[in-house]
Protein backbone atom coordinates (compact mmCIF):
# COMPACT_ATOMS: atom_id res chain seq x y z
CA UNK A 1 0.00 0.00 0.00
CA UNK A 2 1.26 3.49 -0.86
CA UNK A 3 2.02 5.78 2.03
CA UNK A 4 -0.05 8.71 0.80
CA UNK A 5 1.20 11.00 3.57
CA UNK A 6 4.80 10.39 2.45
CA UNK A 7 3.91 11.18 -1.17
CA UNK A 8 2.13 14.31 0.04
CA UNK A 9 5.19 15.41 2.00
CA UNK A 10 7.41 15.02 -1.06
CA UNK A 11 4.98 16.96 -3.25
CA UNK A 12 4.66 19.67 -0.65
CA UNK A 13 8.40 20.04 -0.27
CA UNK A 14 8.80 20.32 -4.05
CA UNK A 15 6.07 22.95 -4.26
CA UNK A 16 7.58 24.98 -1.41
CA UNK A 17 11.02 24.73 -2.99
CA UNK A 18 9.65 26.10 -6.28
CA UNK A 19 7.91 28.92 -4.41
CA UNK A 20 11.11 29.78 -2.62
CA UNK A 21 13.14 29.79 -5.84
CA UNK A 22 10.85 32.40 -7.37
CA UNK A 23 11.36 35.01 -4.67
CA UNK A 24 15.09 35.72 -4.30
CA UNK A 25 16.08 37.47 -7.57
CA UNK A 26 14.62 40.90 -6.79
CA UNK A 27 15.57 40.63 -3.13
CA UNK A 28 19.11 39.60 -4.07
CA UNK A 29 19.66 42.73 -6.18
CA UNK A 30 18.35 44.93 -3.36
CA UNK A 31 20.50 43.08 -0.86
CA UNK A 32 23.61 43.47 -3.02
CA UNK A 33 23.02 47.20 -3.29
CA UNK A 34 22.54 47.54 0.49
CA UNK A 35 25.55 45.33 1.23
CA UNK A 36 27.74 47.38 -1.08
CA UNK A 37 26.67 50.59 0.68
CA UNK A 38 27.33 49.02 4.06
CA UNK A 39 30.70 47.52 3.17
CA UNK A 40 31.90 50.69 1.49
CA UNK A 41 31.84 52.34 4.89
CA UNK A 42 34.74 50.08 5.80
CA UNK A 43 36.52 49.22 2.57
CA UNK A 44 36.83 50.09 -1.10
CA UNK A 45 34.83 47.39 -2.81
CA UNK A 46 36.08 46.25 -6.22
CA UNK A 47 33.59 43.45 -6.86
CA UNK A 48 30.67 42.11 -4.94
CA UNK A 49 28.92 38.88 -5.80
CA UNK A 50 26.00 37.44 -3.89
CA UNK A 51 23.95 34.35 -4.47
CA UNK A 52 21.11 32.63 -2.68
CA UNK A 53 20.75 28.87 -2.72
CA UNK A 54 18.09 26.80 -1.06
CA UNK A 55 19.26 23.93 1.09
CA UNK A 56 16.93 21.79 3.23
CA UNK A 57 14.27 24.49 3.09
CA UNK A 58 16.66 27.22 4.26
CA UNK A 59 17.98 30.10 2.19
CA UNK A 60 21.75 29.94 2.11
CA UNK A 61 23.34 33.28 1.33
CA UNK A 62 26.78 33.37 -0.24
CA UNK A 63 28.54 36.70 -0.42
CA UNK A 64 31.94 37.27 -1.97
CA UNK A 65 33.46 40.72 -1.89
CA UNK A 66 36.85 41.87 -3.13
CA UNK A 67 38.22 45.07 -1.65
CA UNK A 68 41.18 47.10 -2.83
CA UNK A 69 41.64 48.92 0.45
CA UNK A 70 40.37 48.69 3.97
CA UNK A 71 39.81 52.08 5.50
CA UNK A 72 41.83 52.96 8.55
CA UNK A 73 40.19 53.66 11.88
CA UNK A 74 39.74 57.37 12.29
CA UNK A 75 38.67 57.84 8.67
CA UNK A 76 35.43 55.84 9.11
CA UNK A 77 32.09 57.64 8.87
CA UNK A 78 30.16 58.19 12.09
Amino acid at each position, binding site marked *: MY*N*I*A*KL*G*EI*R*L*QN*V*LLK*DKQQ*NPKVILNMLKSDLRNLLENYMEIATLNADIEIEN*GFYKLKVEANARQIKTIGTLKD
Partner: protein
Amino acid sequence: MARKIVVTSGKGGVGKTTVCANLGVKLANLGFRVALIDADIGLNNLDVVMGIENKVMFDMSDVIKGRCRLKQALVQDFRYPTLYILPSAQLDINANISGKDIENIVETLSPYFDYILIDCPAGVDIGFHRAVFSANEALIVVTPHISSIRDADKVLSLLSNYPLHSKKLIVNRVRGDMILSGEIISIEKIMEILGLPIMGVIPDDDEISTLSTLGAFAYGTSGSRAFSILAENVHNGSKKIYDCTYKYRGLVGVIRRNIKRRV
Protein backbone atom coordinates in the same frame (compact mmCIF):
# COMPACT_ATOMS: atom_id res chain seq x y z
CA MET B 1 -3.27 45.60 28.46
CA ALA B 2 -4.75 42.96 26.22
CA ARG B 3 -2.87 40.39 24.21
CA LYS B 4 -3.65 41.13 20.56
CA ILE B 5 -3.76 37.96 18.54
CA VAL B 6 -4.56 37.71 14.85
CA VAL B 7 -5.98 34.40 13.60
CA THR B 8 -4.84 34.00 10.02
CA SER B 9 -4.12 31.34 7.41
CA GLY B 10 -3.88 32.57 3.84
CA LYS B 11 -6.15 29.89 2.49
CA GLY B 12 -9.89 30.23 2.87
CA GLY B 13 -12.07 27.57 4.47
CA VAL B 14 -9.51 26.20 6.90
CA GLY B 15 -11.52 27.30 9.93
CA LYS B 16 -10.10 30.68 10.98
CA THR B 17 -13.47 32.04 12.09
CA THR B 18 -14.39 28.80 13.85
CA VAL B 19 -11.04 28.73 15.67
CA CYS B 20 -11.37 32.41 16.56
CA ALA B 21 -14.91 31.95 17.94
CA ASN B 22 -14.20 28.75 19.85
CA LEU B 23 -10.93 30.03 21.29
CA GLY B 24 -12.73 33.20 22.39
CA VAL B 25 -15.44 31.14 24.07
CA LYS B 26 -12.93 28.94 25.89
CA LEU B 27 -10.88 31.92 27.07
CA ALA B 28 -14.06 33.60 28.31
CA ASN B 29 -14.97 30.32 30.00
CA LEU B 30 -11.67 30.56 31.90
CA GLY B 31 -12.85 33.94 33.16
CA PHE B 32 -10.93 36.25 30.83
CA ARG B 33 -12.35 39.35 29.20
CA VAL B 34 -12.26 38.66 25.47
CA ALA B 35 -13.03 40.82 22.44
CA LEU B 36 -13.44 39.19 19.05
CA ILE B 37 -12.92 41.52 16.11
CA ASP B 38 -14.16 40.47 12.70
CA ALA B 39 -11.65 41.98 10.27
CA ASP B 40 -13.11 40.11 7.30
CA ILE B 41 -14.79 43.15 5.80
CA GLY B 42 -17.60 42.41 3.37
CA LEU B 43 -17.42 38.64 3.97
CA ASN B 44 -18.11 38.82 7.68
CA ASN B 45 -19.19 35.60 9.33
CA LEU B 46 -18.01 35.82 12.92
CA ASP B 47 -21.44 37.15 13.96
CA VAL B 48 -23.15 34.14 12.40
CA VAL B 49 -20.74 31.62 13.93
CA MET B 50 -21.22 33.30 17.31
CA GLY B 51 -25.02 33.26 16.86
CA ILE B 52 -25.37 37.00 17.43
CA GLU B 53 -26.28 38.10 13.90
CA ASN B 54 -29.70 39.36 15.04
CA LYS B 55 -28.16 41.51 17.76
CA VAL B 56 -25.91 43.51 15.45
CA MET B 57 -26.96 47.16 15.36
CA PHE B 58 -23.70 48.78 14.34
CA ASP B 59 -20.46 47.48 12.93
CA MET B 60 -16.82 48.37 12.60
CA SER B 61 -17.34 50.81 9.72
CA ASP B 62 -19.95 52.71 11.79
CA VAL B 63 -17.37 53.13 14.55
CA ILE B 64 -14.68 54.27 12.13
CA LYS B 65 -17.01 56.72 10.35
CA GLY B 66 -18.15 58.11 13.70
CA ARG B 67 -21.75 56.97 13.25
CA CYS B 68 -21.69 55.32 16.68
CA ARG B 69 -19.46 54.85 19.70
CA LEU B 70 -17.28 51.76 19.95
CA LYS B 71 -19.24 50.60 23.00
CA GLN B 72 -22.46 50.69 20.97
CA ALA B 73 -21.04 48.47 18.26
CA LEU B 74 -19.72 45.81 20.64
CA VAL B 75 -22.14 42.93 21.07
CA GLN B 76 -22.01 41.09 24.38
CA ASP B 77 -22.35 37.34 24.10
CA PHE B 78 -25.48 36.11 25.86
CA ARG B 79 -23.74 32.97 27.20
CA TYR B 80 -20.47 34.50 28.37
CA PRO B 81 -20.77 37.99 29.83
CA THR B 82 -17.02 38.64 29.47
CA LEU B 83 -17.08 37.89 25.74
CA TYR B 84 -17.74 40.71 23.26
CA ILE B 85 -17.85 40.71 19.48
CA LEU B 86 -17.17 43.62 17.15
CA PRO B 87 -18.89 42.75 13.87
CA SER B 88 -17.34 43.68 10.57
CA ALA B 89 -18.78 46.03 7.95
CA GLN B 90 -21.85 44.28 6.57
CA LEU B 91 -23.08 46.39 3.71
CA ASP B 92 -20.44 49.06 3.36
CA ILE B 93 -18.08 46.83 1.36
CA ASN B 94 -16.23 49.82 -0.02
CA ALA B 95 -15.78 51.36 3.40
CA ASN B 96 -12.32 52.81 3.29
CA ILE B 97 -10.97 51.06 6.37
CA SER B 98 -7.24 51.04 6.95
CA GLY B 99 -5.00 49.05 9.24
CA LYS B 100 -4.57 52.20 11.28
CA ASP B 101 -8.36 52.40 11.79
CA ILE B 102 -8.41 48.86 13.16
CA GLU B 103 -5.36 49.61 15.28
CA ASN B 104 -7.17 52.59 16.83
CA ILE B 105 -10.08 50.32 17.75
CA VAL B 106 -7.74 47.66 19.16
CA GLU B 107 -5.83 50.21 21.21
CA THR B 108 -9.07 51.68 22.57
CA LEU B 109 -10.29 48.22 23.60
CA SER B 110 -6.94 47.07 24.95
CA PRO B 111 -7.19 48.40 28.56
CA TYR B 112 -10.58 46.76 29.06
CA PHE B 113 -9.80 43.27 27.82
CA ASP B 114 -7.36 40.43 28.49
CA TYR B 115 -7.49 39.10 24.94
CA ILE B 116 -8.33 40.67 21.61
CA LEU B 117 -8.69 38.09 18.85
CA ILE B 118 -8.72 39.42 15.30
CA ASP B 119 -10.34 37.22 12.67
CA CYS B 120 -8.29 37.75 9.51
CA PRO B 121 -9.80 37.37 6.04
CA ALA B 122 -8.53 34.77 3.58
CA GLY B 123 -5.98 35.84 1.00
CA VAL B 124 -2.92 38.01 1.26
CA ASP B 125 -4.20 41.31 -0.10
CA ILE B 126 -5.13 44.52 1.70
CA GLY B 127 -7.55 42.78 4.08
CA PHE B 128 -4.78 40.54 5.39
CA HIS B 129 -2.42 43.45 6.05
CA ARG B 130 -5.22 45.47 7.63
CA ALA B 131 -5.94 42.64 10.08
CA VAL B 132 -2.32 41.87 10.95
CA PHE B 133 -1.29 45.51 11.39
CA SER B 134 -2.57 45.90 14.94
CA ALA B 135 -1.67 42.45 16.29
CA ASN B 136 1.41 41.49 18.25
CA GLU B 137 0.90 37.74 18.06
CA ALA B 138 -0.27 35.48 15.24
CA LEU B 139 -1.95 32.12 15.18
CA ILE B 140 -1.69 30.49 11.77
CA VAL B 141 -4.46 27.99 11.09
CA VAL B 142 -3.67 25.17 8.69
CA THR B 143 -5.31 21.91 7.77
CA PRO B 144 -3.21 18.85 6.95
CA HIS B 145 -3.55 19.48 3.22
CA ILE B 146 -0.83 20.57 0.81
CA SER B 147 -2.68 23.65 -0.44
CA SER B 148 -3.27 24.93 3.08
CA ILE B 149 0.34 24.35 4.18
CA ARG B 150 1.69 26.01 1.04
CA ASP B 151 -0.46 29.10 1.65
CA ALA B 152 0.60 29.18 5.29
CA ASP B 153 4.23 29.23 4.14
CA LYS B 154 3.49 32.28 1.99
CA VAL B 155 1.67 33.95 4.87
CA LEU B 156 4.68 33.32 7.11
CA SER B 157 6.96 35.15 4.71
CA LEU B 158 4.52 38.11 4.75
CA LEU B 159 4.23 38.01 8.54
CA SER B 160 8.00 38.38 8.81
CA ASN B 161 7.47 42.04 7.80
CA TYR B 162 5.50 42.68 10.99
CA PRO B 163 6.93 43.03 14.50
CA LEU B 164 5.05 40.03 15.89
CA HIS B 165 6.64 38.53 18.96
CA SER B 166 4.94 35.16 18.57
CA LYS B 167 3.86 33.09 15.59
CA LYS B 168 2.35 29.70 16.30
CA LEU B 169 0.51 27.04 14.42
CA ILE B 170 -2.95 25.56 14.89
CA VAL B 171 -3.61 22.42 12.89
CA ASN B 172 -7.33 22.19 12.33
CA ARG B 173 -9.59 19.41 11.05
CA VAL B 174 -7.16 16.63 11.84
CA ARG B 175 -8.47 13.14 11.25
CA GLY B 176 -6.77 10.75 13.63
CA ASP B 177 -7.81 7.70 11.61
CA MET B 178 -6.15 9.09 8.49
CA ILE B 179 -2.96 9.98 10.35
CA LEU B 180 -2.70 6.41 11.65
CA SER B 181 -3.28 4.95 8.21
CA GLY B 182 -0.67 7.32 6.71
CA GLU B 183 -3.11 9.14 4.44
CA ILE B 184 -2.51 12.69 5.60
CA ILE B 185 0.61 14.57 6.55
CA SER B 186 1.44 14.24 10.23
CA ILE B 187 1.41 17.16 12.68
CA GLU B 188 5.14 16.76 13.32
CA LYS B 189 5.91 17.00 9.61
CA ILE B 190 3.77 20.15 9.24
CA MET B 191 5.66 21.73 12.13
CA GLU B 192 8.97 20.72 10.59
CA ILE B 193 8.10 22.04 7.12
CA LEU B 194 6.76 25.37 8.35
CA GLY B 195 9.39 25.69 11.09
CA LEU B 196 6.81 26.86 13.60
CA PRO B 197 5.95 25.67 17.11
CA ILE B 198 2.48 24.33 17.58
CA MET B 199 -0.18 25.96 19.72
CA GLY B 200 -2.96 23.45 19.23
CA VAL B 201 -4.41 20.57 17.29
CA ILE B 202 -8.14 20.48 16.61
CA PRO B 203 -9.74 17.24 15.43
CA ASP B 204 -12.23 17.04 12.61
CA ASP B 205 -15.38 17.06 14.71
CA ASP B 206 -18.83 16.86 13.12
CA GLU B 207 -20.34 18.50 16.21
CA ILE B 208 -18.37 21.71 15.64
CA SER B 209 -19.71 22.21 12.12
CA THR B 210 -23.21 21.07 13.05
CA LEU B 211 -23.45 23.41 16.01
CA SER B 212 -21.87 26.35 14.19
CA THR B 213 -24.85 26.12 11.83
CA LEU B 214 -26.97 26.87 14.90
CA GLY B 215 -24.59 29.50 16.27
CA ALA B 216 -23.83 27.24 19.23
CA PHE B 217 -20.73 25.59 20.67
CA ALA B 218 -19.96 21.97 21.39
CA TYR B 219 -19.36 20.75 24.95
CA GLY B 220 -17.82 17.47 25.97
CA THR B 221 -16.92 16.50 22.42
CA SER B 222 -13.39 15.91 21.16
CA GLY B 223 -13.41 19.30 19.41
CA SER B 224 -14.50 21.08 22.58
CA ARG B 225 -11.74 19.39 24.61
CA ALA B 226 -9.18 20.33 21.98
CA PHE B 227 -10.27 23.98 22.12
CA SER B 228 -10.04 23.94 25.92
CA ILE B 229 -6.46 22.69 25.66
CA LEU B 230 -5.75 25.34 23.02
CA ALA B 231 -7.06 28.08 25.33
CA GLU B 232 -4.84 26.81 28.17
CA ASN B 233 -1.84 26.75 25.85
CA VAL B 234 -2.56 30.31 24.69
CA HIS B 235 -2.89 31.55 28.25
CA ASN B 236 -0.26 29.52 30.13
CA GLY B 237 2.21 28.92 27.35
CA SER B 238 1.82 25.19 28.08
CA LYS B 239 2.49 22.76 25.27
CA LYS B 240 -0.27 20.23 25.68
CA ILE B 241 -1.47 18.78 22.42
CA TYR B 242 -4.76 17.03 21.87
CA ASP B 243 -4.15 13.51 20.62
CA CYS B 244 -6.50 13.01 17.67
CA THR B 245 -5.40 9.42 17.16
CA TYR B 246 -6.23 7.93 20.57
CA LYS B 247 -9.78 6.93 19.55
CA TYR B 248 -8.42 4.94 16.64
CA ARG B 249 -5.77 2.93 18.46
CA GLY B 250 -6.11 -0.67 19.61
CA LEU B 251 -8.64 -3.24 18.49
CA VAL B 252 -11.66 -1.00 19.09
CA GLY B 253 -9.83 1.80 17.29
CA VAL B 254 -9.27 -0.38 14.23
CA ILE B 255 -13.00 -1.22 14.17
CA ARG B 256 -13.82 2.49 14.49
CA ARG B 257 -11.48 3.32 11.62
CA ASN B 258 -13.08 0.73 9.40
CA ILE B 259 -16.58 1.91 10.27
CA LYS B 260 -15.59 5.54 9.58
CA ARG B 261 -14.20 4.58 6.19
CA ARG B 262 -17.34 2.73 5.18
CA VAL B 263 -19.79 5.41 6.32
